[in-house]
């Protein structure tokens, strides 16, 4: 028996064009998959990196629910033999002194004085300069905005002047705005030597917090300190790496996987189409082989070997291409976020996974065609008799099944998505026929006879053409759904923020608000209401799996500002006993059920509270807890409010200016409701650009499928097309005909995609689980782009086939026929 690999290789090299398109499809599929896997891992690595930078080597920290406390209060801890390292920090609000004219709020800066800038309890990613404890450490964003270099001086109004010792990359501790517009609502952050800041402010013994490292896990020390501090204004917390409060990116991971699965499925389908056609064409060859002694298994293996060869070559090229694509994708993705983050591409595991999938997936898709090849009936195939069963019966069943599955449109379940996608694929031949019927007069009118023949030709391989269009349609539909989600998100998020922000302006002070301050603000003409907002942070807690997490706990009451979406009865329940309500994301992360208790490290020590409800809230995207204000003070042990919520009846800018003028010496932040909405939704809006890129890539991949299908269609009809040429079709007419076939497939894919997309968006908008997150409306920019890209790329794909078909020699093709 001949070497099976050699036969497979010869077949591949004989049908170069057909295998080329399948190879391109595998390369694209594998590279998109690799890119998405890399994006997934790199993104989580980036956030882990910044979390670890925030935690550094610190194990615990001692904070206060007042602004500061005396350093002497923690001297026993610092001197404890268990403590190996400690760092003292003092926060002070100030204003940059600038040559250009800027408002107070724009110049506002929070200076953190630290006892040792080079401490291992801090991790400052230095770009330039050194951590010499002599001057300021400023983030790159501040250096660029103020145009400062290492050695330049920075003056703080009313405090003093110091040189810039070091410029650092983005770090959570020094997160600062990188433009003046954002500076209007967010303070800059810089770091100074503690001694210098104390000297400037006269707060000689005060600190805001103390971080320390212990020898072992320090659990004993933690518990004893917790007991000691129980009835003071200070409290101890473990330092926990958990930035879920600032990053709501779980949806992003889902997005990566949707695109990855979609890509590999599309390329798998293209492979299936190619290999199935190849098998159908070579039935006689397989029959001869079987008649000469090949077993069914040998033929099956022969086809699988071809696919393995193709998958290997595709993976070999696709994976490195995917690494490159992943790098570009990550750069684009991180540019969406506000801060200038750095990343290291995490490619090792993704390339192993992508290689395995790249090798296995095309082979899986070719199992059925290989099986059909193995089953080739010898006599019938040699006689070239058609063994296919009549298809009208199958067509009818397919349509009935498809229509039945469409009934899931009205079922309130995730199953509806799968049902609609399957129904769409089943109904696509019928849809193509319908579209053909609608477009026939138009094409005949515009292109005359080639238009008519093109329309008729679609019927020849209806299922193959319909499947090709369906795959384009499914790709477009899913991307439209993602686009609709991205488009609806700002609106939904904005609505949620308006409902739960609690006021028009949130004002944060570096020290707790006094009655005097509140009275002053209440006297402003534009302010109609002032409500203190008590937020305990950071509060560490345990998931049901025993993992440490941290979030904020807000104090709420029935008559206070509305911070969450809940019935009034929930407030009554919350007031009855010390218990908490969790925000939806915190609830998911916790992993428990309503009625169970959650363990928290409160200022009053370790406590367990019953979780009585889960709610939606805009605060920290739902990664928070709420407690009744009475229990918050007595049981939880927190009495101060660093924030107030203002309700205003006039322009907020006037109030902002008044606040900074009157209370600027201790204001940390003044943020309006609109600014909160803008900052929360800006990242989501930025994601839309990525969705558009994904849309183009998916359409590009689907177009490879169209090119492949059209090429196979024209190769199969070589003799037929030569006859057309012989009896009078010019090359231009043939080319026009093939282009129109491509156009029809493209149009079917695009229109089908829009219809399926609309169905998916409808299901999502009606799904109770989504709670009205998406409204039923098509993302028009994406629709227009899908139409242009879908039709253009399908025409390009058809152009490739038309060139191939017109370059054939008519006389020799007729001989073959």
């Amino acid at each position, binding site marked *: 028996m001949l070497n099976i690999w050699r036969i497979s290789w010869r077949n591949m090299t004989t049908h170069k064009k057909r295998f080329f398109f399948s190879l391109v499809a595998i390369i694209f599929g594998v590279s998109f998959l690799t890119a998405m896997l890399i994006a997934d891992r790199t993104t989580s690595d980036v956030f882990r990196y910044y979390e670890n930078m925030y935690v550094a080597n610190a194990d615990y920290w001692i904070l206060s629910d007042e602004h500061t406390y005396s350093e002497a209060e923690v001297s026993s801890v610092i001197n404890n033999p268990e403590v190996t390292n400690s760092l003292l920090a003092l926060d002070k609000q100030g204003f940059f002194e600038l040559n250009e004219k800027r408002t107070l709020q724009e110049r506002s800066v929070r200076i953190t004085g630290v006892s040792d800038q080079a401490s291992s309890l801090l991790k400052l990613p230095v770009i330039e300069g050194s951590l010499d404890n002599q001057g300021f450490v400023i983030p790159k964003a501040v250096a660029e905005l103020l145009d400062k270099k290492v050695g330049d001086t920075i003056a703080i109004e009313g405090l003093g002047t110091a040189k810039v010792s070091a410029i650092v990359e983005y770090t959570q501790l020094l997160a600062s705005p990188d433009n003046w517009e954002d500076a209007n609502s967010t303070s800059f952050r810089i770091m100074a030597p503690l001694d210098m800041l104390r000297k400037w402010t006269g707060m000689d013994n005060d600190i805001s917090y103390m971080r320390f490292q212990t020898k072992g896990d320090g659990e004993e020390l933690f518990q004893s300190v917790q007991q000691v501090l129980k009835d003071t204004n200070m409290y101890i917390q473990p330092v926990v790496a958990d930035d879920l409060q600032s990053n709501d990116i779980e949806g992003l991971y889902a997005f990566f996987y949707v695109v990855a699965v979609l890509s590999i499925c599309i390329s798998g389908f293209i492979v299936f189409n190619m290999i199935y056609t190849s098998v159908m064409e070579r039935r006689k060859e397989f029959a001869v082989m079987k008649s000469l002694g090949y077993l069914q298994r040998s033929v099956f293996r022969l086809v699988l070997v071809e696919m393995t060869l193709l998958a290997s070559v595709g993976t070999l090229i696709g994976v490195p291409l995917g690494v490159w694509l992943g790098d570009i994708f990550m750069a684009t993705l991180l540019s969406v976020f506000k801060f200038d983050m750095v990343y290291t591409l995490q490619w090792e595991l993704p390339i192993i996974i992508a290689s395995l999938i790249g090798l296995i997936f095309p082979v899986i898709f070719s199992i059925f065609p290989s099986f059909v090849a193995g089953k080739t009936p010898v006599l019938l195939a040699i006689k070239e008799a058609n063994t296919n069963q009549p298809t009208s019966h199958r067509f009818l069943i397919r349509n009935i099944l498809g229509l039945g599955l469409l009934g899931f449109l009205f079922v309130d379940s995730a199953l509806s998505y799968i049902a609609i996608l399957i129904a769409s694929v089943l109904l696509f031949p019928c849809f193509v026929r319908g579209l053909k019927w609608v477009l026939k007069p138009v094409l005949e009118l515009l292109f005359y006879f080639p238009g008519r023949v093109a329309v008729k030709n679609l019927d020849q391989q209806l299922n193959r053409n319909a499947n090709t269009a369906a795959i384009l349609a499914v790709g477009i539909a899913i991307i439209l759904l993602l686009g609709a989600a991205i488009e609806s998100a700002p609106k939904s998020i904005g609505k949620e923020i308006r409902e739960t922000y609690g006021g028009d302006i949130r004002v944060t002070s570096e020290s707790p608000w006094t009655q005097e301050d509140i009275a002053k603000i209440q006297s402003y003409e534009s302010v109609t209401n002032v409500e203190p907002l008590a937020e305990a942070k950071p509060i560490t807690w345990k998931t049901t799996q025993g993992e440490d997490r941290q979030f904020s706990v807000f104090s709420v009451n029935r008559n206070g500002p509305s911070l969450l979406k809940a019935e009034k009865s929930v407030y009554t329940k919350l007031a009855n006993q010390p218990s908490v309500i969790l925000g939806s994301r915190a609830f998911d992360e916790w992993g428990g059920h309503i009625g169970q208790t959650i363990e928290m490290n409160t200022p009053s020590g370790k406590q367990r509270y019953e979780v009585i409800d889960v709610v939606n809230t805009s605060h920290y995207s739902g990664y928070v807890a709420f407690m009744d204000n009475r229990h918050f003070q007595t049981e939880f042990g927190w009495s101060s409010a660093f924030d107030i919520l203002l309700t205003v009846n006039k322009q907020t800018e006037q109030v902002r200016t008044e606040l900074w003028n009157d209370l600027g010496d201790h204001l940390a932040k003044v943020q309006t409701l609109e600014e909160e909405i803008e900052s929360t939704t800006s990242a989501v809006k930025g994601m839309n650009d990525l969705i558009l890129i994904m849309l183009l890539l998916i359409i590009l991949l689907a177009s490879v499928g169209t090119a492949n299908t059209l090429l196979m269609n024209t190769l199969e009809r070589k003799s037929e097309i030569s006859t057309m040429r012989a009896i009078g079709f010019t*090359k231009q*007419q043939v080319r026009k005909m093939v282009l129109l076939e491509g156009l029809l497939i493209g149009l079917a894919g695009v229109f089908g995609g829009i219809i399926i997309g609309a169905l998916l968006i409808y299901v999502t908008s009606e799904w109770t689980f989504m709670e009205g997150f998406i409204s039923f409306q098509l993302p028009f920019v994406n629709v227009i782009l899908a139409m242009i890209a879908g039709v253009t790329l399908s025409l390009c794909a058809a152009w490739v086939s038309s060139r191939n078909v017109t370059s054939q020699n008519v006389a020799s093709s007729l001989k073959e026929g």
Partner: protein
Amino acid sequence: MIRVHNVTKEYMQGQEKIQVLKGVNLQINEGEFVAVMGPSGSGKSTLLQLIGGLDLPTSGDIQINQQSLQEMNEKKRTIFRRRHLGFVFQNYQLLPTLTVEENIAFPIHADGKIRKRNQRSITNLISEVGLKGFEKKRANLLSGGQQQRVAIARALVNHPSVLLADEPTGNLDRTIAEDILRLLLTFNRKHNQTIVMVTHDIFAAGFADRIILFRDGVIEKIISRKDEDYAKYMAHFMA
């Protein structure tokens, strides 16, 4: 009508140059029914393709109605073929997605919009080839003989100067083949249709006015029905 002057045709087969036609000279007059015969590889089908403008000779000249095919570019040659030549192939080569009527009308459609007189001509042709009632049927659903009738009607729909038939009865049994040949003869006699038919079947060749015998790329002999030794030669050939 058809003038083949000193035509040669060469192909490359791998590194080897194959000369299929070696200086062929031939003249076919209007209204003639000519059969081209010869063993496989003798060059008879190549000659038919060259006359049909499907391929170009390596050297020499082919003129149809005083128009040289070599002097036309590909597009002009296609349009010339569409308007002045008709093709009938051994395996019918009908377009499976089109109906009988659409297949027949293809060359007219390809040439532009169909007119009333064309429609009349199509209806008449369908009737003449005996396919009345089959107009709306898909061509690939007909029997072999019926398909070849469709092919003949398609070839004649534009009233071509020459009908070129390549083994038109090669796939048919004797009775049906005879029907097809009689049909061709009818068109030849009734409409003075010039026919050039390639065949290896002496029975089919017997319907022609002249038989051109090919061997190794050259014309070995041309015998005419009017020749004295026609009957003797045919008997010898059949034996």
